[in-house]
């Protein structure tokens, strides 16, 4: 009898930690990136989320539209409405307002600033940071492992060393960007990186033409095929190898500017396009 | 050629400046317009130039000014306003050349005739040595002579001047008025507003007095510039000496009189000049 009572006590003591997190951990996610990662971390983590970012349902920017329940409050920035939800941890972007951040910190919230959106490694680091902050380190590692095998699957040499450039109204992704990783995984040479540029830089159309890229990647407007045709008519572009080979590739902006697991899809899409064009 | 004004009237808002003005200015005459500040002298002069519409008629050689085109009117009547913008950075020659605008088509440049006329007009006022000087570097007297040259360059018969002597010292004022008298003798019709009543008396053939109460008085200098009338209109003591020359009597002792060159104090008859309307 006494042993049963001790066993029951011991069991109830063990049971309590598994129910406590959902009472004591309240997560506020203010970036689309953390919205997506938290969702991917599974049921237990999802139950702890009290707010997601306002743009999570905007198809132009979010990879997980209409996934989070509609009743869950949407918040922007580091506002008082966020504090009112009494989160214990908040995930914010590095470009968020510092005063707003200190407001959250004064309210006793653990503010995790997500920075580093420069490619595959940065994504893995962010997943680990988020997972650790919400006590789901193991599931975070599982996500990272799944991502790594995805990347390995998509990695190929289909690009065959061709030069590639991502051009968005003059904004070019050089070394240390998600595009750099995506293109290299498909076997391409990132032209802007080869020319010594880093990060996102403004480059003139003339420079683009002078570099003679083999593949040009642009973000789609409403109609991807029309965007490609329109870009080919820009002055001087017709003289690039990309235009001559039909390798102006327009990708959905959500995909092209993705910083999460969908990055791998860009690698695959580039490979598919190259295969089509060389047939 | 005669300048005829019949039943001219003007009002500002609800205040009647003057009405029932009849005056005839034949060729070769100088007509002075006198009256207190705000009495409507400038309004009358602008009406004579066609810059604003007066009630009644203004006719030159039996032709109504209002029926003339702006260019024809500009060729018939030359106007010198009270103030010229001080920042005009034109040369003397440029200013006088502007007087030729009524004779030039819109698209044409200056012709030989224009240049000759400009030269002749400058010589007339003894300013031909100043042709390349910038207007802002000239003295007040020199500037007025240039403006006079500009009026001569228009070859207009009628010359209307609004207080041309206001900013001039005695020497230059006399010089200007003598020039105007000579021009009248050559066949021009001169109409000018003037504050200095003794000068008006000396140089004008006829006087229009606008007391500011809506009435008008027109006549010879003896008739209009009588000491009794001047006392009533300006509140100043004038007298005629043995030669019939008008003189201002200044009583320094009581301090009630004002200096002849300053603005006359408002006279009792000018009750309608009050800003607040009376029923």
């Amino acid at each position, binding site marked *: 009898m006494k042993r049963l009572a001790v066993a029951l006590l011991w069991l109830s003591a063990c049971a309590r930690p598994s129910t406590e997190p959902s009472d004591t951990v309240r997560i506020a996610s203010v970036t689309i990136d953390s919205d997506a990662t938290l969702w991917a971390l599974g049921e237990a983590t999802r139950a702890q989320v009290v707010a997601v970012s*306002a*743009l999570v349902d905007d198809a*132009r*920017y979010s990879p997980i539209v209409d996934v989070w329940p509609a009743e869950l409050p949407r918040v922007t920035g580091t506002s008082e409405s966020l504090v009112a939800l009494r989160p214990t941890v908040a995930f914010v972007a590095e470009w968020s307002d510092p005063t707003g951040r200190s407001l959250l910190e004064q309210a006793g919230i653990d503010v995790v600033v997500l920075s580093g959106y420069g490619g595959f490694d940065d994504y893995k680091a962010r997943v680990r940071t988020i997972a650790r902050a919400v006590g789901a380190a193991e599931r975070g590692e599982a996500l990272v492992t799944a991502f790594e095998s995805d990347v390995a699957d998509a990695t190929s040499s289909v690009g065959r060393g061709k030069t590639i450039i991502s051009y*968005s*109204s*003059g*904004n070019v992704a050089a070394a240390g960007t998600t595009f750099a990783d995506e293109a290299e995984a498909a076997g391409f040479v990132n032209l802007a990186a080869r*020319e010594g*540029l880093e990060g996102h*830089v*403004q*480059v*003139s*159309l*003339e*420079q683009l*033409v*002078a*570099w003679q890229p083999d593949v040009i990647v642009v*973000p789609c*407007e409403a109609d991807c095929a029309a965007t490609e045709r329109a870009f080919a008519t*820009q*002055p*001087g*572009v017709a*003289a*690039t190898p990309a235009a001559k080979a039909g390798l102006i590739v327009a990708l959905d*902006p959500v995909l092209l500017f993705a910083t999460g697991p969908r990055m791998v899809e860009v690698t695959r899409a580039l490979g598919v396009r190259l295969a089509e064009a060389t047939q | 050629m005669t300048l005829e004004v019949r039943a001219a009237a003007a009002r500002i808002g609800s205040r009647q400046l003057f009405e029932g003005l009849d005056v005839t200015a034949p060729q070769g005459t100088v007509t002075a317009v006198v009256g207190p500040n705000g009495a409507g002298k400038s309004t009358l002069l*602008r009406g004579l*130039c*066609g*810059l604003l519409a007066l009630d009644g008629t203004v006719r030159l050689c039996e032709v109504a000014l209002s029926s003339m085109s*702006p*260019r024809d*009117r*500009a*060729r018939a009547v030359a*106007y*010198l*306003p009270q*103030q*010229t*913008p*001080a*920042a*005009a*950075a*034109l*040369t003397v020659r*440029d*200013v006088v050349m*502007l007087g030729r*605008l*009524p004779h*030039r088509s819109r*698209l044409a*440049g200056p012709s030989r005739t224009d240049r000759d006329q400009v030269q002749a007009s400058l010589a007339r006022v003894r300013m031909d040595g100043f042709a390349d000087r910038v207007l*802002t570097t000239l003295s007040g007297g020199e500037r007025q002579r240039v403006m006079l040259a500009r009026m001569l360059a*228009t070859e207009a018969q009628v010359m209307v001047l609004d207080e041309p002597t206001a900013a001039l010292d005695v020497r230059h004022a006399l010089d200007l008025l003598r020039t105007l008298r000579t021009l009248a003798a050559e066949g021009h019709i001169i109409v000018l507003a003037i504050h200095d009543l003794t000068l008006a008396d000396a140089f004008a053939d006829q006087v229009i007095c606008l007391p500011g109460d809506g009435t008008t008085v027109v006549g010879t200098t003896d008739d209009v510039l009588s000491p009794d009338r001047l006392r009533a209109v300006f509140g100043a003591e004038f007298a005629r000496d043995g030669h019939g020359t008008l003189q201002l009597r200044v009583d320094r002792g009581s301090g009630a009189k004002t200096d002849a060159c300053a603005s006359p104090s408002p006279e009792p008859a000018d009750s309608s000049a009050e800003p607040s309307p009376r029923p």
Partner: protein
Amino acid sequence: MIRPLLVVCAVLVIALWTALVVGPGDVGHAQVAATLMGQEVPMVAHALVWDLRLPRSLLAVTVGASLGLAGAIAQGLFRNPLAEPGVLGVSAGAAMAGAVALAAGLDAAGPWAIAFAACAGAVGVLLVLMAWARADARLSTLILCGVALASVCGAITTLVLSIGIERWEVGIKVVRWLMGSFDGRSWSHLGVGATTLLVGGAASVWLRQDLDALQLGPDTAASLGADLRKTWRVGIGAVGVLAGICTALTGVIGFVGLVVPHVARGLVGSGHGRLLPASALLGGTLMLLVDLLTRTVTAVALPPGVVTSLLGTPVFLLVLARLRTEVT
């Protein structure tokens, strides 16, 4: 008086040649000459010289000339040495309309969509100004109307930006539009710009006498036979069209209309028969030099509006200082 203008012409020609030769891709003098003469050249060289550098440089000249001309007309019309197209609010209206169109995603409709929107904005502001001028022709209230319109348009543009902060891609596009650019401009842009300049040139031939007369004040001008109502309408229309279309073609580029007429006045005097074409010539040369500078300093593109502001501010202060000593 002619000699300094000849020097400016020489600078313009040299700058134009330099603009064709200089840039990425190592295109030499010989290849440029061959391209211009229609001879066989490598496709890249032809693309760089004929498709990119030549229309872009000529557009820079055209836009600079239009802005310089618009500034000279505005200064003559308002008799104010600080007047420029920006004062009328036309550039602000064009800029605002472009920003709103970008925020609404209209750039997806085609390359001319934003330019069209900007023109509509400029025309809208112009119509308001014309209506105002009809009701109350005094210049002072007209300037105030222009300043008020510029304020409102600026506020709306800021509103667009503040909404765009969340949508960073749109925000970038709007800011880039506001900063101005000659990049990627083609022969069709040049066609529109050149036509506008011709229209402006015709208006300036019509206006030059009246602008001269206006320098002695509106009363004197009217007494010399000028129809002031018509003068103001044509003048405001010309300034609006010139500034509005330039903003539509290349974004917001300031200071050119303010500074160029002053320098031109120093070279050829105040007579508008010489001042207006001189302002156009100087403005075009200046803009070309600015574009050349922004293109060649680094591989990373600089906005021309920034350069004109940086160069224009000290010149403007110099002019202001000289004005203070001149006007007693």
